[in-house]
């Protein structure tokens, strides 16, 4: 033994004792800190400061006293107190965690010192005797196999214990609705024979089924075939397929779709929209002249489709049963959603331009599944889509600020985009077979060559802010909110004539036979002969306010007034 070793042995017991004392002291310290933290934790979690009896008592007292200012101050004082207590206890835990960490570190260090000091040379004699034969690692092999089997077993258990009631395979397939009897999409001829969307076939505002009455009077009943009350309000216009007329209506209580008999006016069924997941719990704030049911429904002979200010989008079959429905998200715009729906073959097209972004959706009309979606860099708009034939292919044309755009309805690819529009766009575009027309108040009326994607002509007078333009027979008709009707040469943009009526127009002009039907806000329809000069054929009234657009099919005019639906004909 060297002198150094002797000296080491002399202080070893002392060092060991010091380390043990340190470890014990640190242990006691940690125990105290732990105990305090546990007590604090139990107290904090057991007594939720928000449920403080004193605070609750005072709040109740405040309610009884009718907002007594003294009690109110007491509530505030107690509230402040419980908040302070809460944050103090939180701080206590945080400081405690640091102290505990420090205590444990000291304790561990002392324990390591004790280990180092007390460490002896391993006792080789105590080790098991060396073997003279190598034992094969059979147990290890089996155990590895057991772990492998255990992993497989766990996998099987996970699969077997998958929560019942949930589709585990092909989730989307299991959610398929029961397929309807396959009915082909309507042909162009069928569309032209009906009035399937806002402003008629393809949104053209042109009736293809002959002439319509030029005189009627609701007060005397002249040429009023029937009139029917509409249960709930709505500024949407009638759509017609065969012998069915469809409308929608909504108030804070419910959203409804109505089906009327086109011949008798009988309300065949009412579908109340319900069980739409994520439908807003509260009625969205909308302006009085937009309401909760401004968008016009669309119909394709198989189903009727409707959208409301809540963003609820539903498809209902001709028997009034919901086929599919979901909430598209509550539109964010200052007046309420107003863009109407349009169908194209087996797709439902939804213009959904709001403050959160511009969108054009195409949903499978049978299932509601998204076929494609286009995000549009436009401001909120209230216009509706129309269909136009551009380069011998169908295009869906949208008007919004700042773009007039056309998309291929097959895949949503952009066909045309013209930067010319401004303001809060309400009027929908029009198409006369060659040119696209778009107009909006405080902006312009523009004629666009869709093949070139350029403006042919533009004008800045007599602009509508709600009513949509009508393009027919080489003429462009605009009806403004102040009662002015202007007629332009469609190809050159020359103003042919203007005429000022007494009341303004929200309703869009519609062409039938050789006439244009312009319904003013008082419910008087002015029938003007299509021509390069103003020629009033007559004026006819339904006797109540009207902001909707007439549907003209088979010699009948269907017009929704403030409270009733009218059928006018011979």
């Amino acid at each position, binding site marked *: 033994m060297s002198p150094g070793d002797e000296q080491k042995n002399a202080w070893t017991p002392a060092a060991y004792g010091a380390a043990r004392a340190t*470890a014990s002291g640190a*242990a006691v310290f*940690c*125990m105290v*800190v*732990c*105990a305090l*933290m546990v007590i604090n*934790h139990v107290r904090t979690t057991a007594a939720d*400061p928000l449920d403080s009896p004193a605070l609750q008592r005072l709040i109740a007292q405040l309610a009884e006293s009718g907002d007594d200012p003294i009690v*109110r101050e007491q509530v*505030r004082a107690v509230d402040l107190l419980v908040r302070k207590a*809460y*944050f103090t206890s939180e701080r206590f*835990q*945080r400081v*405690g*965690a640091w102290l*505990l*960490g420090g*205590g444990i570190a000291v*304790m*561990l260090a002392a*324990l*390591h010192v*004790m*280990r180092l000091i007390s460490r002896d040379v391993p006792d*080789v004699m105590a080790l098991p005797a060396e073997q*003279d*034969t*190598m*034992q*094969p*690692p059979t147990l*290890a*092999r089996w*155990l*590895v196999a057991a*772990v*492998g089997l255990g*992993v497989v077993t766990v*996998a*099987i258990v*996970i*699969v077997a*214990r*998958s929560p019942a*009631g*949930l*589709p585990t395979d092909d*989730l*989307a397939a299991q*959610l398929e609705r029961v397929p309807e009897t396959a009915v082909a999409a309507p042909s162009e001829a069928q569309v032209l024979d009906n009035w399937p969307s806002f402003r008629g076939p393809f949104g053209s505002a042109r009736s293809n089924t002959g002439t319509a009455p030029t005189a009627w009077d609701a007060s005397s009943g002249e040429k009023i075939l029937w009139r029917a009350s509409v249960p709930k309000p709505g500024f949407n216009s009638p759509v017609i397929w065969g012998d069915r007329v469809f409308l929608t209506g909504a108030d804070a209580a419910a959203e409804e779709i109505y089906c009327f008999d086109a011949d008798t006016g009988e309300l065949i069924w009412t579908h109340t929209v319900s069980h739409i*997941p*994520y439908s807003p719990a509260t009625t969205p704030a909308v302006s009085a002249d937009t309401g909760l049911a401004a968008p016009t429904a669309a119909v394709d002979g198989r189903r009727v489709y409707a959208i409301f200010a809540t963003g609820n989008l539903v498809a209902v079959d001709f028997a009034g049963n919901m086929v599919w429905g979901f909430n598209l*998200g*509550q539109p964010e715009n200052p007046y309420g959603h107003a863009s109407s729906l349009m169908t194209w073959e087996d797709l439902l097209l939804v213009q959904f331009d709001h403050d959160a972004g511009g969108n054009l959706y195409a*949903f499978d009309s049978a299932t509601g*599944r*998204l076929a494609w979606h286009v995000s549009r860099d436009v401001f909120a708009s209230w216009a509706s889509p129309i269909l136009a034939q551009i380069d011998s292919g169908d295009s869906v044309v949208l008007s919004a600020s700042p773009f007039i755009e056309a998309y291929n309805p097959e895949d949503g690819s952009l066909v045309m985009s013209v930067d010319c529009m401004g303001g809060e766009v309400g009027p929908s575009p029009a198409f006369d077979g060659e040119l696209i027309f778009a107009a909006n108040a405080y902006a312009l009326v523009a004629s666009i060559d869709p093949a070139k994607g350029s403006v042919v002509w533009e004008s800045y007078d007599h602009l509508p802010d709600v009513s949509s333009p009508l393009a027919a027979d080489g003429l462009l008709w605009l009806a403004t909110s102040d009662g002015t009707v202007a007629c332009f040469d469609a190809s050159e943009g020359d103003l042919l004539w203007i005429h000022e009526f007494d009341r303004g127009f929200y309703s869009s002009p519609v062409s039938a036979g050789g006439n244009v039907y312009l319904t003013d806000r008082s419910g008087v329809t002015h029938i003007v002969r299509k021509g390069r000069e103003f020629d009033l054929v007559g004026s006819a009234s339904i006797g109540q306010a009207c902001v909707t657009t007439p549907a003209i099919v088979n010699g009948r005019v269907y017009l929704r007034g403030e409270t009733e639906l009218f059928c006018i004909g011979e």
Partner: protein
Amino acid sequence: MKGLLIAVVFLTLSGVATAPAAGAGRYPEPDFESGYVIPTATTPAPNAPSWEYLHLVVLAAVLAVTALLVLKVRYRAGVYILMIVSLAYFGFWRQGCICPVGSQQNVILGISDSSYTVPIFVIGFFFLPLVTAVFFGRVFCGAVCPLGAVQDVVALRPVRIPEWLEHALRMVPYVILSLMVLFVATGAGFIVCRYDPFIAFFRLSGSAFMVTVGAVFLIAGIFVARPYCRFLCPYAVLLSWGSRLSWLHATITPDECVKCRLCENACPFGAIQKPTPERIAEPRERGVKRLALLSLLLPLIVAAGMVAGWYAGTPLSRAHKTVYTAEQVYMEEAGLTDQTTLESEAFAAAGRPAADLYEDAEQVRGRFRRGGALAGAFLGVVFGMKMLSLSIYRQRDDYEINKAWCLSCARCFNYCPREQARRSGPREQDE
């Protein structure tokens, strides 16, 4: 022993007691006007890239010094001090992130998702310890990894785990690695980070569950040295592969083994392999037959793993937010539940049709099934190869280090009389 028991009690209590301290405090605003202006919530700015590169330089430096201490100086105290420094720096100061264990996930995501770019310093954190392992063994585990360090300091009374059990338990990290790759590659998330048992200690913040899990690991770590590193860590799998090939590796003895048996129980991680007797206790034919049988079974084991992985893919896909949300929305739509979740409410607010979500979920499920099959096949290969390797006898004449299991902690050096002689060599020569 008393001290040990006290330590157990405190570590348990610390888990319970720190949990409430850890939870981020939330308290609703007063429901009346008090004139107090609620401060705008802010989030701390991320570290500047220059800082991250500095951390990378520190990592490289610590790895280099550790390699020097283990391979050249052979100095356990130095390694231990470096480990404490690393624990303080990479653990408590850097709050355990980003660590090489977690960086694997970034790298996998970078490979599987072309829209995700892995930062250079993250790639550095992933590859540096691996490259070091290929050259010098698992020096990262020995003194650099904060997760290993926090377990090492509590390893006060480690017991030796039987070799047969050690072999079996060391298969678990392969399972974790497979799951980690599957979850990351399918976009389900970074599960290794989410269930890091020690991150709550490094950050002094975490859920009560994770704090408790961490405390349990530390308590277990008193008796079973570094349980996470040996039986769970997925990065250890990669490091052990690198270490098997290492160019230089720590050895128990600086020169020759005298078979004194002093080091036999020195390694708390079971990484010291004894010399083997020359005779084998079973006929050679039996061993050959077993080897042949296992070789034939290997494709079946791989196939079984693939099938199990394929079918487990669907339920495992629930860890992905899209599938989870789709199933929740489905249950709500089908009227199976009245409860909504934050995810389903957010989905509803986004205004997308549920059918789209279901389609997305189905795609994710497909990825999980395919990924699950690959993971199962990988595990089949690993388990099959392990059983094969356990059927091949290797002759050892000396006490040797198992390169794959050795954590380069330098503990065994002090047990070797040849090492003691090396250290006192000049003095003895003087005498």
